C-alpha cells in the first residue's frame, strides 16, 4: 500500500521502478479525497494536474538517472510556508486569499531536492495554539480514537496539527512543521509520528510567516527517525536572506541514524518529574530510560533549575514578538481589509475582523508587556529568565550528551477539553518550551500507547547544532519501541 510507506521505502521503490512517482502521487490524492473531509488536515489541496505534472517530472528524473534525494516523494506543507502561486493562509481570515508571489527558502529547497507537494496543511492560526482548534479553516480531527469512546473527536495537537494528522493518516508520506514552543513535537507525540525541531538557525525562516522570530524553527514531521534525517538534509542550510540563519555546513544527518550510542551520557532532568505527572507518562519515561541503558548509555541525573519558569517566560516573550510581527497586517499592503472612513478605523476594523480570538489576545498581551511602564517588569524580566533557562541547558550539557524527557504531559485530549482557561491550555507545552527557549534541537519519537490506545512520545534534547546525536539516540528509542500502531482512520490507497 503506497500510502503506508516511509520516505526511505518510497525512495527505494521509486528508484527500483516498482511504482512511479505518478502512481505514488495519485494514491495520495485519492487518500486525501477519502479522508480529508473527516480530518480537515489540509486547507488547500494542490490541483491534481499540477501534482501529477510534478510527479511526471520526477519520473523523468528517475528515467534519466538524475533523481535527487527527495525525488518524487509526496509531502504536505504547513500552511505557514509561503508557496509561490499557491494560497497561503496561516489558517487566518486575515490571509484567506493571500497568494504569495515568492517561495520560502525551506520549500524552495524541498522542491529543488525533488519533493512533490500535495497541499497546504491546517494549523492553529498563525501557529498559535496547542490543539489545532484555533483555525479559521476549522479544527483538525486526529485520526486516533480512544478505545471505548470512539465518538469523541480528539485534537491532533498543535500548532502543526494538520501536518501531524496527514502523516499519521496516510495523507502524506511526511510534512513540514514549524516549532515555536513545541508545535512540531507535541502534535507528533499526539499523532504517533516523529517530529524534529532542529537547532534555532538550522533551517531558514525566510518566507515562513513569522510568529515569534527568536523561537520559530522549521522541521520535518515523518514516520521514522531515518525519514526525519533525510528530510532535514533537504530543508536545512545557510540562507543569506535570514539574518539568524546559521552559517554552518549541513551534516549528513542520515549517517547518524542507527549509530551506536554505547557510552553516551543521557541526562534525566529532575525538574521534569513534576508532582502530578501522569503515571502513564512517568512509566513510558522509565521505559525509555531502560531502553537507552540497555543500549549502553550511561544514565545521569541532572538539574534544570529554572524549568518551572519556562512557560510564563515563553508566554511573555512569544506574544511580545508576535505583537511586533503581526503589526504588518494593516489592511493596506496585503491580506484582508475592512472598509472604513478613516485610516485609523481601517486598521482597527481590519485587525478586529481578521484575527481570531487567541491571536488577538496574544497581540494584546504582547503589546501590554512591551508598553511603557510594563516593559521592565515583564518583557525585560522574561529575557533575563530566558538567559537562566538557556544556562541550565548549557550547564547540563557539560555533564551529559543528550537529555531524555516526555514530549507532553498527557496523551491527546478531546475537542472542548482544556479550552476554557488559557493557562490550562498553555500547560501542554510544559516539556517542549524550555528547549525552544534555549534554541537547542529536540526530537519526539513515538514510544508506546496509553491505556486508552493513544500514542505517547518521548523527547530527546541535544546540544546546539548536535542534531546527529539526537537522531542516534532517537533511533535507539524507535528500534526498542517498535511502534507500528496505526490510527483508527488510515487511508489505504495504491497497489
Amino acid at each position, binding site marked *: 500500500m503506497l500510502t503506508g510507506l516511509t520516505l526511505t521505502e518510497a525512495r527505494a521503490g521509486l528508484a527500483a521502478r516498482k511504482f512511479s512517482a505518478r502512481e505514488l502521487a495519485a494514491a495520495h490524492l485519492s487518500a486525501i479525497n477519502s479522508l480529508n473531509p473527516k480530518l480537515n488536515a489540509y486547507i488547500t489541496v494542490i490541483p491534481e494536474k499540477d501534482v501529477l505534472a510534478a510527479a511526471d517530472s520526477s519520473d523523468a528524473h528517475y528515467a534519466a538517472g538524475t533523481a535527487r534525494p527527495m525525488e518524487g516523494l509526496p509531502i504536505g506543507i504547513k500552511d505557514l510556508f509561503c508557496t509561490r502561486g499557491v494560497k497561503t493562509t496561516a489558517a487566518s481570515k486575515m490571509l484567506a486569499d493571500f497568494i504569495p508571489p515568492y517561495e520560502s527558502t525551506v520549500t524552495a529547497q524541498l522542491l529543488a531536492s525533488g519533493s512533490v507537494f500535495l497541499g497546504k496543511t491546517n494549523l492553529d492560526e498563525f501557529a498559535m495554539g496547542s490543539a489545532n482548534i484555533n483555525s479559521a479553516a476549522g479544527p483538525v480531527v486526529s485520526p486516533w480514537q480512544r478505545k471505548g469512546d470512539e465518538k469523541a473527536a480528539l485534537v491532533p495537537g498543535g500548532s502543526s496539527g494538520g501536518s501531524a494528522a496527514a502523516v499519521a493518516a496516510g495523507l502524506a508520506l511526511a510534512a513540514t512543521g514549524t516549532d515555536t514552543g513545541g508545535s512540531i513535537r507535541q502534535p507528533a507525540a499526539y499523532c504517533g509520528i516523529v517530529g524534529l525541531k532542529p*537547532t534555532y538557525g538550522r533551517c531558514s525562516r525566510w518566507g515562513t510567516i513569522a510568529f515569534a522570530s527568536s523561537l520559530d524553527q522549521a522541521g520535518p514531521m515523518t514516520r521514522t527517525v531515518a525519514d526525519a534525517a533525510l528530510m532535514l538534509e533537504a530543508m536545512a542550510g545557510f540562507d543569506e536572506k535570514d539574518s539568524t540563519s546559521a552559517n554552518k555546513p549541513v551534516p549528513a544527518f542520515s549517517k547518524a541514524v542507527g549509530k551506536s550510542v554505547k557510552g553516551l551520557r543521557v541526562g534525566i532532568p529532575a525538574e521534569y518529574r513534576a508532582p502530578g505527572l501522569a503515571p502513564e507518562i512517568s512509566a513510558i519515561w522509565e521505559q525509555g530510560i531502560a531502553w537507552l541503558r540497555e543500549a549502553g548509555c550511561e544514565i545521569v541525573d541532572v538539574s534544570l533549575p529554572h524549568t518551572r*519558569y519556562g512557560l510564563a517566560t515563553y508566554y511573555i516573550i512569544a506574544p511580545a514578538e508576535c505583537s511586533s510581527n503581526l503589526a504588518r497586517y494593516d489592511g493596506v499592503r496585503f491580506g484582508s481589509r475592512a472598509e472604513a472612513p478613516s485610516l485609523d478605523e481601517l486598521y482597527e476594523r481590519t485587525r478586529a475582523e481578521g484575527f481570531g480570538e487567541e491571536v488577538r489576545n496574544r497581540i494584546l498581551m504582547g503589546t501590554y508587556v512591551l508598553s511603557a511602564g510594563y516593559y521592565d517588569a515583564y518583557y525585560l524580566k522574561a529575557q533575563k529568565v530566558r538567559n537562566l533557562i538557556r544556562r541550565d541547558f548549557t550547564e547540563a550539557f557539560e555533564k551529559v550528551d543528550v537529555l531524555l524527557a516526555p514530549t507532553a504531559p498527557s496523551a491527546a485530549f478531546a475537542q472542548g477539553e482544556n479550552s476554557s482557561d488559557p493557562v490550562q491550555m498553555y500547560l501542554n507545552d510544559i516539556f517542549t518550551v524550555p528547549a525552544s527557549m534555549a534554541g537547542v534541537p529536540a526530537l519526539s519519537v513515538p514510544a508506546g500507547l496509553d491505556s486508552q490506545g493513544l500514542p505517547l512520545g518521548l523527547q530527546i534534547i541535544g546540544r546546539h547544532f548536535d542534531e546527529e546525536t539526537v537522531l542516534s539516540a532517537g533511533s535507539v528509542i524507535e528500534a526498542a519501541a517498535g511502534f507500528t500502531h496505526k490510527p483508527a482512520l488510515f487511508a489505504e490507497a495504491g497497489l
Partner: protein
Amino acid sequence: MSLDIATTRRIAKLARIGLADDELETVRQKLDGILDWFNQLSEVNVEGIAPMVGTETEAMRQREDVVTDGNCQEAVLSCAPDKSGPFYTVPKVIE
C-alpha cells in the same frame, strides 16, 4: 495589581485592534488571569543577569551595501487589497 478597563482600552488602541465595550471587559478578564500567572517570575533572582536577545547562536552579519533584489513592483502590489496604478490606497488622510 489588576488590569483595569482604561489600560485595556489603551493597549487595544496601541495594537490597533478595534474592540467594542463589551468585548473590552472579556479581554480584560482573560489578560488579567494570564498576568496574574506571570507574577510567579517575581520570585526569580535575575541580579546581574543579562537579557537574552534572540538565541545568540550567530553574530550579526554585515554584507556589501548593494542592491540584491528589485524590479518586482508588480509582484509586490499583486497582494494589495486595493491599489491605484503603482500605489497602495488608503482612506483620505489629509482634508
